[in-house]
């Protein structure tokens, strides 16, 4: 579904992503793991177009998206959440999701003439996404008033209703309490059953090894290992990257 070819990104002298090649397969949950600063988020940023690569190509379903702007990448079918909370603070939970779902809302004249209302189907989809994460009763709350864990859930729900073929989650459960963590892992497994393709970055090994099908390990900008969770658990390079220094 997604191919990354010899991708490199330098910040000054630091190669944050260093000649990485890999691919993401359909209808799987793939995890990208690695120590702090190993280049995971940078790789996400390159894919979603918020950073420009120095070298390499990114191909999504046969479409070369290497030089796309973030909104074009999104419209090509890639949805994501950020490592830091990035909700629309002053809007309600429901409004946050409605913005993600609606594709006509940037058309000025249609809006001025009152032709772009949110549709019944859109309300319904938002409702079911919120029910899925147990946040339906909070739909009219302003998101800045929610707890951190609830905000993470809303962000996940927002990326879910944003039309997409691939979902990229940057540390969805970091700093979230164990109960919500459990909910999120169940949710991801359900989504996979429904045919979603998901890539996630995560530090929590238990979380990762329990739900994912494929693991990509990064260290110092390089992909040092790749394979099934069981294979990765016993890979000596991986153990060294995590336990060394």
């Amino acid at each position, binding site marked *: 579904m997604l191919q990354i070819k010899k991708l490199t990104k330098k910040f000054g002298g630091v190669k944050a992503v260093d000649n990485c090649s890999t691919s993401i397969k359909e209808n799987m949950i793939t995890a990208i793991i690695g120590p702090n600063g190993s280049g995971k988020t940078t790789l996400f940023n390159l894919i979603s177009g*918020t950073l420009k690569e120095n070298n390499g190509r990114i191909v999504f379903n046969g479409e070369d998206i290497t030089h796309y702007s973030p909104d074009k990448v999104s419209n090509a079918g890639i*949805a994501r959440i950020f490592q830091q909370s990035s909700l629309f603070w*002053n809007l309600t939970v429901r409004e946050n999701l409605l*913005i993600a779902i609606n594709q006509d*809302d*940037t058309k000025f004249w249609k809006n001025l003439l009152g032709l772009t209302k949110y549709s019944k189907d859109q309300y319904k989809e938002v409702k079911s996404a919120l029910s899925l994460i147990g946040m339906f009763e909070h739909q009219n709350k302003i998101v800045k008033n929610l707890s951190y864990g609830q905000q993470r859930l809303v962000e996940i729900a927002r990326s879910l209703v944003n*039309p997409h073929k691939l979902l990229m989650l940057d540390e969805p459960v970091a700093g979230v309490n164990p109960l919500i963590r459990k909910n999120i892992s169940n949710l991801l497994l359900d989504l996979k059953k429904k045919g979603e393709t998901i890539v996630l970055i995560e530090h929590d090994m238990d979380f990762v090894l329990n739900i994912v099908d494929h693991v990509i390990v990064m260290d110092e900008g390089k992909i040092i290992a790749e394979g099934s969770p069981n294979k990765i658990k016993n890979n000596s390079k991986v153990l060294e990257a995590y336990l060394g220094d």
Partner: protein
Amino acid sequence: MIESYLIHLLIMIGIYLILAVALQLAIGYTGLMNLGHIAFFAIGAYVSTIFTLSGIPFLLAFIFAGIIAMIFGYALAYPVNRLKGDYLALATMAFTFVIWSLLINLKGITKGPLGIANIPSPSIFGFQLISPFHFLILVIIIAVLTYYILHKIVRSPFGKVLEAVRDQELTTKILGKNTLKMKSYAFAISAFFAGLSGSLYAHYITYISPSAFTILELLPILAIVIIGGLGSLRGTALATVILILLPESLRFIGVSASFIGPARQFVFALLLILILIYRPKGLMGRVDID
């Protein structure tokens, strides 16, 4: 006497209301710290004046005042696209200086610092609006329409995307929206109404010169937007009425006429400081902007 004074105040409230709700759209709803608003007001005033003086009917000149200001607003969004907060404020303020110096220097068109006098009172379909009362009716119609249209915009899905741009521009892009387009629309809409307001101002005062469009003239409008509260059109309307009427009370406590001008500036600045200290969200504000 008292009647014409009241009519004058109401006309000023209308003109400022249009300016302030338009600026609220840019600052409060879209998060664009636009200090170039007075330049759009100036463009509207000059376009309308120059057009009517060259024989173009008022209504057409009025609409062009809005459209030409709008084009400037739309275009301004591009060079300042990557700027945020203070930098955006500085760049848009620079825009005010650019327009102001054009008004001074393009003497062939603008008559330079002397300004343009004897601006005709509006004539609509052959009906001359000579009396201030007739002019007031025109101002009320335009102000109400402006408020209504902006209300429609901010309540629509389009308005929600503007707020999304204000809260998290990068995330708005990640959700597939072209945020540059959204910001240029916000600038354009805001400038359009500022231009209309400028036209009304010119034909009401009947004399314009660059000195009426300096950055100082932005102070009352900015004060209205912040005191009314970011992200609230109703608050903006309320603050307009308060800020136009409050300095007038100075007259009744015996402040001399020559002192009213500076005293007004003083009242605006004082109110602004008090609000920022004691009620940072303004009268009816809903949003926190960091």
